[in-house]
């Protein structure tokens, strides 16, 4: 289950928001582009970049986010976190994380920290459960359903 297929399947019922946050593995940070790990990325044809420095300005961050959006091709519109990492910190999101917020403003699903806790399949199940609850609630309010 890819994020793109999730988006294509549910975008009419769920608002998808991709939030670009601080680079997890930039050249000038915890870089994974060298050695055996870097080789593994090439062999597996990973689409993750290994040639990015950590953006130092908002403009650089927007450029990196644009490159990310166009090359990963999720099809999901991207918002960019600020340079203080405000939203990233509030959601403990680095390196990757998935959440589902119900229409009531409460968390319907809080995924684990990536990469190992990053599970689009779990998000899909949470979406299905949430949408089923909505249908059931609508039905219980419908006087014709008795």
């Amino acid at each position, binding site marked *: 289950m890819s994020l793109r297929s999730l988006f294509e399947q549910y975008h009419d019922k769920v608002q998808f928001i991709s939030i670009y946050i601080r*680079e997890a593995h930039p050249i000038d940070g915890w870089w994974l582009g060298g050695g055996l790990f870097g080789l593994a990325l090439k062999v597996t044809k990973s689409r993750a970049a290994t040639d990015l420095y950590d953006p130092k300005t908002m403009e650089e961050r927007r450029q990196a*986010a644009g490159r*990310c959006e166009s090359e990963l091709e999720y099809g999901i519109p991207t918002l960019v976190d600020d340079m203080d990492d405000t939203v990233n910190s509030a959601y403990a999101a680095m390196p990757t994380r998935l*959440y589902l917020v119900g229409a009531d403003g409460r968390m319907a699903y809080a995924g684990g920290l*990536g990469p190992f806790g990053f599970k689009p399949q779990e*998000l899909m199940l949470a979406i299905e459960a949430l949408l089923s609850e909505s249908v059931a609630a609508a039905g219980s309010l419908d006087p014709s359903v008795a």
Partner: protein
Amino acid sequence: MLKAIRARNQTKAWQKLHDVHAPKAGDVAHDFELHDLDGKNSVRLSDFRGKKPVALIFGSYT
């Protein structure tokens, strides 16, 4: 190499610090307002309240 190890340790410490405060299922989601790639249009999470669920996908390019 040493720089990468230091950065890894900093990242792990950052995650440990913030993960305990990460929203859990049932919590009210932290509201935020962020801008798009152009920096011109902003989106606020609470704008969708009462309208539709929102899937939040956090990540970067590396």
